[in-house]
């Protein structure tokens, strides 16, 4: 699976093994530090938006607050409720934490993409990618891990043996499974344009700003991906999983000490990785901004890719914090309506449109005719869908449902 990295072309030697171990360490440490930083960043920005000071005691600007919290959690008493299913209860935090970390492995964190170098950098005479692994199924691995991450939350709620966590986890699994469909369909549009599954290949395909997938796929998949990604993260305004006013704290109510810390870390880790995935899929990852032939050069040598990546990452980290500070939580029926009746149909329709336009280009058909036919088909499907929704809601009203 790792054969795509030219590091392994000349067989294994000591240097190669050392480089791989160093990469693993860097990815692990960067992941942890990024998560800790994200916790601080969120608290600081939110307190700014709410006219508060926020964490400011531990370290400069309160930067070490997360570390202090982590140490505190570490020394707290580790409780297992009497009615809990103890094996599953202990397993669940790891099921949430491990996938969150593994996603980080397939994201290109930097590298030199100029002049068709394909993100390769040279370390001690060995050419390698600035990402831990570039498996041929690339982005599918991300979908795989996000579908495994559901289990962490689901089993945590169930094994706690009390009502609020169970409600939280049932909500979580329904929400995450339904939004995964929209997520996958919008990734499909990107793959259609990029023509590859590998994350490195997706970044290589976006070498100028007009070929960034946010523009090349026509913005709609990007918007859908951001919304569905937020729902997948269970972040506000989709945080019904741990709605404090209804469910105490949702699936993690019964958790304490280190196990709670793992959930907490996984949540923020997922926020960082989801932002990184958005950057990779839609904004060209570590690619610099290139308009036509002019490239905005940062003059940072081999680090410029990483700096570009971080700059783009920050846009989305800030966006997630901003959403949390601004938007009220959705009602449950609104959440499901948005997922099933709005996002999935639009994502599917847009995917078909892109596919049709691509076939038209390859076969040399008249673009205008194809466009008109697509518009007519999409409009017809839209009318059909709204008619179906209207009929079903009328039927339910007749049966006396609330909404």
């Amino acid at each position, binding site marked *: *699976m790792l*054969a*795509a990295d030219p590091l392994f072309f000349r067989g294994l030697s000591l240097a190669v093994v050392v480089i791989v171990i160093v990469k693993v360490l860097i990815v692990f440490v960067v992941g942890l530090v990024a998560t800790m930083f994200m916790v601080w960043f969120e608290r600081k920005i939110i307190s700014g938006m709410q006219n508060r000071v926020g964490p400011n005691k531990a370290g400069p600007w309160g930067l070490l607050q997360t570390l202090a919290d982590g140490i505190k959690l570490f020394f707290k008493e580790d409780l297992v409720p009497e009615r809990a*299913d103890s094996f*599953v209860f202990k397993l669940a935090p790891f099921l949430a934490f491990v996938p969150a970390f593994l996603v980080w492995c397939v994201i290109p964190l930097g590298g030199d993409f100029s002049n068709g170098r394909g993100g390769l950098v040279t370390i001690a005479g060995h050419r390698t990618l600035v990402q831990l692994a570039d*498996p*041929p*199924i690339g982005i*599918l*691995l991300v*979908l*795989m891990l996000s*579908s*495994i991450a*559901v*289990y962490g939350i*689901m*089993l945590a709620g*169930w094994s706690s043996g009390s009502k609020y966590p*169970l409600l939280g*986890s*049932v909500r979580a*699994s*329904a929400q995450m*499974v339904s939004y*995964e469909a929209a997520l996958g369909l919008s990734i499909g549009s990107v793959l259609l344009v990029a023509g590859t*599954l590998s994350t490195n290949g997706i970044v290589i395909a976006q070498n100028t700003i007009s070929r960034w997938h946010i523009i090349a796929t026509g913005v709609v998949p990007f918007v859908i991906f951001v919304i569905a990604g937020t729902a997948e993260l269970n972040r506000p305004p989709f945080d019904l999983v741990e709605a404090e006013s209804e469910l105490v704290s949702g699936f993690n109510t019964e958790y304490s000490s280190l196990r709670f810390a793992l959930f907490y870390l996984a949540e923020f880790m997922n926020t960082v990785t989801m932002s990184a995935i958005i950057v990779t899929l839609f904004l060209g990852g570590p690619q610099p901004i290139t308009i036509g032939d002019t490239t905005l050069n940062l003059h940072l040598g081999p680090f410029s890719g990483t700096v570009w990546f971080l700059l783009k990452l920050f846009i989305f980290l800030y966006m997630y914090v901003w959403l949390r500070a601004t938007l009220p939580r959705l009602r449950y029926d609104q959440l499901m309506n948005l997922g099933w009746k709005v996002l999935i149909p639009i994502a599917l329709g847009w995917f078909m449109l892109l596919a049709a336009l691509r076939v038209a280009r390859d076969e040399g058909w008249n673009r205008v005719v194809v466009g008109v036919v697509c518009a007519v088909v999409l409009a017809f499907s839209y009318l059909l869908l709204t008619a179906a929704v209207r009929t079903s809601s009328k039927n339910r009203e*007749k*049966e006396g449902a609330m909404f």
Partner: protein
Amino acid sequence: MQLIVFIVATLMVLVGAVGVIVRKHPVHAALSLILTLFGIAVHFVALEANFLAAVQVIVYAGAIVVLFLFVIMLLGVDASEDLRTDPITAQRPLGAIVAVAILALVGTSIIVSRGILKVTAAGKAVKAANNLRDLARSIFSDYVFAFELTSVLLVIAVVGTVLLARKLPKPEPAVKS
């Protein structure tokens, strides 16, 4: 190396499969099923069928077993079942007979067809890196009709389930007050 991976993956599959049957608790049985499905995914990766491995995890472990668990939690059947009573009489002896019969059938077919499997030249030419492309090409060109029929079958199943599960409103006599 391949042998080690094979042994570990096979152990995962077998332990999971035994667990599904032996565990009395439905949630534990479902978790064992996940172990089995993961073991199969590892086998796929070892055979360089990366795409199949991904689909195995996304579809089976990520959607179907989640639905199983969802139903178990929602219906609250997570208490252990009482195994002393049989819902249908003579269910167990019949089950044993069927199990032995299936085992015998599968066993003989494996023993008989042991020498038939060979690596052909066409199979050797398929590169692992392109297996997604080859798969897509055969699904959407040679077998497109069968593929579409399968999807129609799934839609029919869903619509049928909804129709069966849905209670049609009875015409109630209008109450005058």
